[in-house]
């Protein structure tokens, strides 16, 4: 049942700017072999994500949300199944090519912010550009633009531990966006924040999605935050239990 729903939703007109699929995973399995017993984390997951979509993944603890997100974000590999990113067969790529694809198109946001403690805000923002080998002058421009846009110019010389959680997450979002990725994966981005800060971050992600067409895939526990997405994938014990199309986004 989940399968048909997914296939439907792939074609599903959810009011997106672009209809071609950005990501397609088919029959994905992920398990851990331990003492000859396979413990399945993901089973038979088939899912399409359109370019420009805002997708939420929900489910109880241990349902495989984060694992799915890591696989989609190319930080982890499935044991079985296909993964197409912009029609490229990621499941056949070696780590090097996967990293290259990841670097080019993917941004990540974590629940625990995960800024590099020894680097200032400015330097944290600069790091992904360094790995992308962006030229110095261009890098400076990009970092300064981003600082401006997120209204954190005044904080650029501070270290992470000098910022509040909300501010740190803001920097983390800015860092994920600075390379202009096609898709941002967010792993419970508001989990450590109070409700006001959480709302601000969610508004920012929604705005990004709306105005710049950045695809966003978030994992969340929170029903309200999930509803920022166009669709909500409900996972249970590693399987897609159901796909919910968020009504008011269809309008």
């Amino acid at each position, binding site marked *: 049942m989940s399968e048909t729903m997914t296939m439907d939703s792939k074609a599903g007109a959810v009011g997106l700017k672009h209809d071609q699929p950005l990501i397609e995973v088919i029959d994905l399995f992920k398990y851990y072999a331990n003492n000859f017993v396979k413990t399945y984390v993901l089973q038979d997951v088939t899912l399409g994500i359109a370019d420009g979509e805002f997708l939420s993944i929900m489910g109880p603890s241990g349902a495989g949300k984060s694992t799915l997100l890591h696989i989609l974000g190319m930080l982890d590999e499935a044991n079985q199944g296909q993964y197409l990113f912009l029609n490229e067969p990621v499941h056949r790529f070696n780590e090097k090519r996967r*990293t290259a694809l990841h670097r080019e198109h993917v941004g990540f946001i974590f629940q625990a912010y*995960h800024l590099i403690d*020894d680097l200032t805000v400015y330097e944290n923002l600069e*790091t992904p550009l*360094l*790995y992308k080998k962006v030229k110095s002058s261009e890098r400076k421009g990009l970092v300064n633009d981003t600082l401006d846009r997120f209204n954190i110019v005044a904080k650029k010389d501070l270290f992470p531990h000098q910022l509040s959680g909300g501010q740190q997450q803001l920097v983390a979002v800015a*860092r994920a966006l600075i390379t202009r990725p096609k898709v941002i994966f967010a792993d419970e981005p508001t989990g450590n924040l109070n409700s006001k800060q959480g709302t601000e971050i969610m508004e920012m992600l929604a705005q990004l999605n709306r105005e710049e067409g950045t695809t966003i895939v978030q994992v969340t526990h929170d029903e309200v935050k999930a509803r920022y997405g166009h669709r909500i994938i409900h996972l249970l014990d590693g399987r897609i239990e159901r796909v919910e199309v968020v009504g008011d986004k269809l309008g």
Partner: protein
Amino acid sequence: MFRNYMTIAWRNLMRQKGYSLLNVLGLALGMAVALLIFSFVRVDLRWDRWHDNSDLIVRPVELQDFGGDERTDVAVTMAPLGPMLVEELPEFETMTRVMHGWRAPVLMRGEKRLYESSTAYVDSSFFQVFSFKLLQGDPETALTRRDAVVLTEEARDRYFEADENPIGQILRVNNQRDVVVTAISEDPPPDTHLKYAMLFPFDAGLDDQRENLDDWGSNFLATYLKLVAPVNMDTLASKVTEAYHRHGDWAELEFWVQPLNDMHLNSEHIEIDINPGKSSMNNVYALGAVGVFILLLACINFMNLSTARAITRAREVGLRKVSGARKRELIFQFLGESLLVSFFAMLLAALVVELAGPWFADVSGRALEFNVFSGSFATWMLLGLGAAVGILAGLYPAVVLSSFKPVTVLKSADSRSTMGGGRLRRVLVVFQFAISIGLIIATGVVYAQLQYGLTKPLGFDKENVLVMPIPDQGFWDNYEDHLNAFSKVPGVVDYALSSRVPSRGGSSSGFVPEGSDRSRVINWNSVSAGGDKVFGWEVLDGRFFDPELTTDRWRDGDTTGVMLMNEAAVRQFGWDDPIGKTVRGFGNITFTVIGLIRDYHFSSLHTQIEPMLLVNLGPGFSLVSIRYNRPDAHAFVQELEAVWDERFPDRPLDYVFLDENFDSMFRAEERQAHLFQAFSIVAVLIACLGILGLAAFSTGRRTREIAVRKVLGASEGRIFGLLTREFAILVLLANVIAWPATYWLMSKWFETFAYRAPWPWWVFPAAAVGTLLLALLTVGLQAVKAVRLRPAMALRYE
């Protein structure tokens, strides 16, 4: 990118000051010691190889085979050998002989009168064979005139002012003849066995032994030959032996040919050798290994501390990978960090070397200069060490760190979870301590042997004996009167004349014992009556020379004489009772044995006591030895000097104390002991720095565990035990490994001595207890800190 890495590296260093300091300090110590050792060894490896044609210069070495196990390699030759070889064998282009004078001449210029103890008589082709540079004068002609003298800069400065031109100036030798300065040579560098302050033409040295010039039976000088082109040494050796037998008549004699390049490190087995400062390949290997080991110890600290700390860097690695870092880039980053650390260590090591350099030069007895900041060998060596250590020590942690999987390290809530490498760390700590323990034991053994050598009964009494050379002229005419005057100085107990002192062996010649027709080369020393009292020899049988019996003293023209011999000589001759037997020697003089003396050590403890014959040859004396019984040696010398100056105004008094003279034989061993001591201290220090870092880290990681245990009721003592036990076990394990390995190695070392100290067994437990205590102290400091922590503090933040 680079700046980004360096920023991180720098901030990391600053954030963990204690850890960084341990790392930098340990590495710096290791590098400094390695640099000192490698510089020292480098001198050995380049010894005499700086001559332009060092690969073409060879010397003939005599192999005197007495049958059985006895073989003697003798690197001094007869005078006619060199010229004959150049004449008859086309392989040789030219040659030079080097002959050191029997006695130091007195050189005079104006008011200056100085003994020149470092003189040599050489052939005029000396500067064609060797590459000592002349600052003034022509190398072709410098030594052609018979009254020429070549001075080194150092010798020049003793006689001439800076603004004088010494060329063509006159010096007077022994107040007998004048010589003309024809050239000024550079001072011989430290890395050559040919040390001289003055060179005279070969002819000038033969005044008192002209009869030796054509003698194919007397070995008394060194011969060096220059080849036309490289040849096979074995073939050459047999040609040299053949050529010798066309002239000489010693049937058993064979020659082999030693390249100059081998002389320094491959002459251990040559018993009679004019080769000051000679070392051996074994020494080079041993020292080099110590250097490498100490450097390794420091690198291990670095690797251990870095991988232990990897856990705290894991999150950063994960993040960087999520931000698009390739593995290669992360490896570069961490290598960069270790290079930064090793760069700081290098600067500190440069400082250490600058400060410790003079001390090391003193202890090692080698004039080494470390101009670390002037682009010398030391500079490049240090840069090389810095880079090598940075990469070597950094590579393993870099590979470990960069292979962390972002999903694992970012997901896990407890970023401090153990992450492997623990076993390797323990193995490395054991290795470090094993090396330290080995060095401590080696130090103990070397000291034991040194102490043994210095305190062993020598068979003679070296204390309270002053030795002075007999002046060439003005002595013999009136010698009884002179000696009488010396004996009147208060404190003089007895005196004797001799050709050599007991600690310096003797000359050797061929002797034929009664009942045999075969000649053997045996050491002999010419001593006057009274020698037994002065030198403290013990006469076991028969009697010593008697001053009252004129027949005891041999005079020119006598065909008979008397002699004493030591126990070793009796053994070699295979006699039961030597008294009354006869020995033929020195041409055809028959000596009757009148006494047997106890074996005494006349050379280093490396060699067995060899046979020694004591004769009493009137013309052969060159030394006066005086036994005195005054505690104020200095005042005694002054009073003696007053008598001397009155009688020999031409020449200053020159003297040595016999014990100093003897103890100098142990200088090499003493140096070895000091070096080992210094190195083992450094090794232990580095190992302790290492476990200090590891202990701090592992205790830090177990803070929570300690707190929980305390809450559950563990006593402070138990927790202390928990934290220190692990390291104690490692150190004990290190002992188990180090003991047999060191025992084996040091047994080999002991075997190089014919007379060995008993094994100092106590050094084994001493090394074990010492390292264990030091380790416990180091770890204990950390443990006490952890034990004292109140549980609430630790648990609150978890």
